[in-house]
């Protein structure tokens, strides 16, 4: 829409100054940004402040909005709401295992794909295909993969049967449901893997040659060349993976509906239920804001520690 507005606007030759005292050129520049600014104000900033307001109230969608002050937050942070505590624990559990797992698995696969092997396109497709499968189709599929007599247990039985160990009933057990969902999440590591692959291909060959001259073996090269050179990509994917793990929704909703016995009740699922099942709009907003501050805090911590371990080549000259 901006495109047509611009086309019908007066010619650049006009030298008049608008209300803000901007030149025509500056006004034009601003018009290019305007669609985003409009969307930001109406769909992001406005709702953001409104949700902050709601988080201090009680409102069931009908009737009056009742001001509660900090009551919602007090109830959540005091541990009074045990389901909330459980969902915080579950989400933290997921983050602790999902994030390092995804980074390590993607790193290993990218390392293998980066060696000069034949048929690379086939391998790359096999590893990436799960990541373009939609979240819902993945969940529908893995519900069956994780059945007691499903694909995963058939595979595990190869190793467990000789030891006389029973493979777990993933989705039916409060102990195993969360590990099951975490294993499922490793199936979709394709995007991280491709970011790493692009990073690996950007490492200058002469660094490896120099390391070899210094007598570095395979591990020495990984430890002293590959990992330091990949820290920007590792940092980026870590930040994204942490943010992503706080927003798990589709898998838990479809496969377990938060069960059994709230063992896979994620924060976002609990937020959704409070808002759209129990119609506690104020309470749901308070959960959203706590979630926001947790993500913000973790992201800031990661950015602060990044200075110690992330190596940006462009900054070398200092």
């Amino acid at each position, binding site marked *: 829409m901006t495109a047509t507005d*611009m086309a019908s606007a007066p010619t650049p030759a006009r030298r008049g100054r608008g209300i803000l005292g901007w030149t025509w050129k500056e006004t034009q520049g*601003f018009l290019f*940004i305007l669609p985003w600014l409009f969307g930001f104000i109406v769909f992001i900033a406005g709702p953001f402040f409104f949700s902050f307001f709601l988080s201090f109230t009680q409102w069931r969608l009908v009737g009056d909005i009742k001001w509660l002050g900090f009551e919602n937050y007090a109830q959540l942070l005091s541990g009074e709401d045990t389901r909330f505590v459980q969902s915080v624990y579950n989400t933290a559990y997921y983050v602790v295992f999902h994030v390092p797992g995804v980074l390590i698995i993607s790193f290993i696969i990218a390392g*293998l794909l980066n060696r000069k092997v034949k048929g690379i396109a086939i391998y790359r497709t096999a590893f990436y295909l799960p990541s373009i*499968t939609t979240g819902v189709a993945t969940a529908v599929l893995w519900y069956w*993969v994780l059945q007691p007599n499903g694909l995963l247990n058939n595979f595990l039985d190869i190793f467990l049967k000789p030891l006389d160990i029973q493979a777990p009933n993933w989705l039916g057990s409060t102990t195993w449901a969360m590990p099951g969902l975490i294993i499922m999440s490793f199936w979709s590591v394709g995007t991280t893997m*491709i970011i790493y692959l692009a990073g690996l291909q950007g490492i200058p060959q002469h660094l490896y040659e120099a390391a070899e001259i210094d007598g570095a073996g395979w591990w020495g090269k990984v430890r002293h060349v590959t990992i330091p050179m990949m820290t920007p990509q590792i940092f980026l994917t870590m930040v994204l993976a942490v943010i992503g793990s706080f927003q798990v929704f589709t898998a838990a909703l479809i496969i377990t509906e938060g069960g059994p016995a709230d063992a896979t009740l994620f924060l976002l699922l609990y937020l959704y239920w409070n808002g759209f099942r129990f119609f506690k709009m104020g309470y749901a907003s308070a959960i959203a804001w706590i979630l926001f501050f947790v*993500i913000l805090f973790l992201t800031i911590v990661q950015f602060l520690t990044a200075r110690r371990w992330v190596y940006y080549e462009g900054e070398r000259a200092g």
Partner: protein
Amino acid sequence: MHLASRAITYLALWLGSCLFAVPFLWMLLTSFRQIDSDPAAPTQFWPDAWTWQSYIDASETAPLANWLANTLVLVVLGLFGQTFVSIVVAFGFARTQFPGRNQLFMLVLATLMLPYHVTVVPWFIMFRSVGVLDSLWRIALPDLWGNAFYIFILRQFFLTVPVELDEAAEIDGANLLQVLFRVVIPLSKPAIATVAVFNLIHKWDQFFWPFAFIQTPEKLTLAVGLRWFRTQYASEYPMLMAASIVSVAPIVIVFFFAQQHFARGAGLSGIKA
């Protein structure tokens, strides 16, 4: 590479890609299986008899054509509203000067960090008050104003296009729009294609908003429709797998034709912030 290390590489690649491919292959093969061959054996891999029946059943029980049409509407609106509008906005940030421009760009970057669920409740109330709940418009409307991540990627790319080309065009009498469409866009095709492919995949996968705001089965998208279908026919897994295959097939086909853009896109998304 030494022979031994070569052998280990191939073995690891082969085993690893099998582990990743097997669930997908199972989904594909199961969709062609006789529905009553042996419902108690979900791990059976190869069908006893091949049949299209699950696809026929799925298309008769679920409004798959409606879902596909709805998904396409959202994808097209999304490509316009996110890829195209982001191009225009990114051009503004990369190529024009006005007071407050840099501060606004910082604001764009800041929104990358905002978790979308904070806006769930206000959006619900807002759209309810103007009566567009249970409508595709509800899903499309907030996406028509550019996307912060795409604006960021495109702006970084536009900065690499030599500004002398703009100036030459302007001396020839081109206005800013002509500079955008005749100089910057033609020279930025790889970045734009990358963003468009990301955008396409993301819209195809979109679940939360249509799930939260649309109730009528005919108005659903493929992703949310599949979830609805599953709640109705939880145990008939060959039919569910057929519907799953239908819902991912278009995007898989696009992937095969756009493979190199994925690799390049990932490289771009790794741009140091």
